[in-house]
């Protein structure tokens, strides 16, 4: 047992920190810290800065232009990015689709798509969930019928995050309606400019436009856009989901969030004293901090095991459940700390705008974020589904 980072790891952390100090634009970190949206331009700009540094694809092999960092390095990078309030890297192309293409895509697909993910020319979104296929993803109904050199795609995807910015979508589609659920699914790459695709916004309960419905009506997709083999898409989808679940614990987000709560509680007054001195509030903060200290170590333990080649099993489900619970608890404390100033609807604060926000610094977006982050325990496999996975492995068929 040794809880310290190696000298190399510490040097790496320093390198990341220096880079962020130098290259992360202040207006961007301010926006992230205050919970304001960045818009497409902001995301594109940060993407380009990281690409120029060669740090855009921490998880990609070097052959494809990635950093080939190990799990601990990736963790350090994420931690430092959160600490510096760097924008989240939009994951759909870089950390979801790319590993699938690298493992299952053809040489032509790799050569064509991967450089365009790095350059930002392609903004990918994810076509997985459907109105009738949420937790039970394998029951998806969007169908693709082969006609000559094309598939004809009909159906509807939903909860498509930032689909309004995307020009490509990777989709799970049903290519064999007669096969067992998981066995008739294929993985298709679709150009969003193809006729027959319509993106409709879904406005979330905090007023933000973050997700969309994507409708497909007789959309013609060239057969070369099929990844791997027809009807083997479920295998690739599962492989992608294991990558979706890296950094699932969100320790860096929680640490940044807890720091923000403490900052706010130092400036908010309760009976003439800073709120942070109030024992009831201080106890909440301490409780979350205790949970987070353990979570950080749990996360590192699992990352270290992964770095030494052990595939994470139920541990990633455990990280997801506990990690999201901690993040949501921190969101709850933030709205509490804001007091009456949690009540205003801060559309400017959330969407970006010129009006100064209502209330003291750091209060404007907290209630909206509290509601928005209810999604954390729903998406990427709900926490109930994660518990099913744990229970199936640990309880299934055993005396």
């Amino acid at each position, binding site marked *: 047992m040794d809880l310290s980072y190696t000298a190399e790891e510490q040097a790496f952390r320093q390198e990341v920190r220096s880079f962020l100090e130098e290259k992360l634009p202040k207006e961007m970190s301010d926006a992230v810290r205050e919970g304001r949206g960045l818009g497409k331009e902001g995301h594109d700009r940060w993407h380009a800065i990281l690409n120029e540094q060669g740090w855009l694809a921490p998880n990609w092999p070097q052959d494809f232009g990635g950093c080939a960092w190990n799990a601990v390095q990736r963790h350090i990078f994420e931690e430092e990015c959160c600490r510096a309030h760097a924008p989240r890297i939009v994951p759909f192309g870089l950390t979801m689709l790319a590993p699938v293409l690298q493992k299952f895509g053809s040489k032509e697909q790799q050569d064509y798509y991967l450089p365009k993910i790095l350059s930002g020319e392609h903004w990918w979104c994810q076509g997985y969930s459907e109105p009738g296929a949420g937790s039970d993803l394998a029951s998806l109904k969007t169908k693709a019928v082969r006609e000559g050199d094309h598939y004809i795609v009909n159906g509807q995807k939903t909860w498509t995050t930032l689909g309004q910015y995307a020009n490509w979508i990777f989709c799970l589609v049903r290519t064999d309606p007669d096969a067992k659920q998981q066995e008739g699914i294929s993985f298709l790459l679709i150009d969003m400019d193809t006729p027959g695709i319509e993106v409709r916004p879904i406005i979330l309960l905090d007023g933000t436009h973050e997700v969309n419905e994507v409708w497909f009506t007789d959309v013609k997709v060239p057969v070369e856009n099929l990844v791997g083999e027809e009807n083997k898409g479920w295998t690739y989808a599962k492989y992608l989901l294991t990558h979706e679940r890296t950094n699932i614990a969100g320790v860096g987000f929680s640490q940044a969030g807890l720091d923000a709560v403490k900052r706010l509680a130092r400036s908010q007054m309760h009976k003439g004293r800073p*709120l942070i001195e109030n024992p009831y509030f201080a106890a909440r903060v301490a409780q979350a901090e205790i949970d987070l200290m353990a979570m950080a170590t749990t996360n590192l333990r699992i990352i270290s095991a992964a770095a030494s080649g052990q595939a994470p099993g139920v541990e990633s489900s455990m990280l997801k459940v506990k990690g999201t619970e901690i993040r949501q608890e921190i969101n709850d404390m933030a709205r509490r700390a804001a007091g009456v100033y949690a009540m205003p*609807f801060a559309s400017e604060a959330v969407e970006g705008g010129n009006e100064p926000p209502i209330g003291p610094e750091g209060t404007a977006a907290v209630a909206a974020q509290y509601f928005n982050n209810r999604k954390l325990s729903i998406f990427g496999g709900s926490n109930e589904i994660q518990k099913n996975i744990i229970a199936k492995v640990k309880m299934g068929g055993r005396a």
Partner: protein
Amino acid sequence: MNFDLTEERQMLQDSLRRFLSDRYTTSVRNEILESEAGYSADIWGQLAELGVIGALFSEEDGGFGGAGFDISTVFEELGRAGVVEPLLDTALLGGGLIAALGNDDQKALVEEVIGGAVQLAFAHGEPTSRYELTRVETTATVEGDEIILTGKKAVVVNAEAADHLIVSARESGDVDATDGISLFLVPRDTAGLSLRGYALLAGGRAAEVDLDAVRLPVSARLGAAGGAWEAIAGVIARAEVALAAETLGAMETATELTRQYLLTRSQFGRPIGTFQALQHRVAELLIEIEQARSGVINAAGHLEGDTRMRDLNIAAARNLIGRAGRLVAEDSIQLHGGIAMTQEYELAHIAKRIVMAEHRFGDADTQLERFLDLSAA
């Protein structure tokens, strides 16, 4: 012991529930949320006509109710339907203060409130007072036969729509003393009074109020100089019973929507409500709702009695409902999944009403602190 509503209150509950389920549908309410005013003058008029506002005032004040159980009956129904119209602000707070302290001239406004003709707002909280109800830094200075108000008021709900604001200001005493606080009836268009209005996350509107040497005749004062605290504490107690009952009603709607959804939503080839893990979650919510109902009954039943017992029961109810409400709001969203995250779905609004109610007059922690202080007293 008798836990039944009186015949009159039962009729009030039935007619209000029927009216709201017919007229205050999700789409009507969503239009109101999008509107510039943030409330519907039409609905307001009909609520007045139904006698809903009158039910919040005693016969002595021109109404036909006004007791704790009248308030809880009305607000449970308003909460059930997610009503955003400012009954709490205009009737319980504003109207209540005028009824408690006003002279005969001033009390004429109460009749107009009951008739639905007047809107009011209570400008009390300040940017740094948080939930401390006696902390008033805004000053009132007498100059000849005038009074000059200077200060800032925070998150004044319904300020823009209000014909009059009832502004608290300190005439004497320390910044957090109970003695020395006065109330003033200030027409919204008075010179020196400016508003920065905004929408609230859970519906309705509020404003930051700036009082820049607002000059009023001495006759604008409600009650005796420096003697308003007892009346303020009294109307806030009534408002807290209302908030507790409103949240209870909203919790019932959230849980019922969830129950229905689980019975109809199918995944893995069967309604997800057939999974025991999810059934237990609904069972927990139903248990919490019964506890919350008892909390509301305790609070409403002690509203007219001894003030220490009143405040103890209110702190207890609001702490309990703060905790239970959060569980119901969060679990109802969770059990629905993504659909409950969308603005147009009924539960999204109901969940916001539940959680944001905690931010008026004190969250669960503040109520716990009050409860312990009162228990020790």
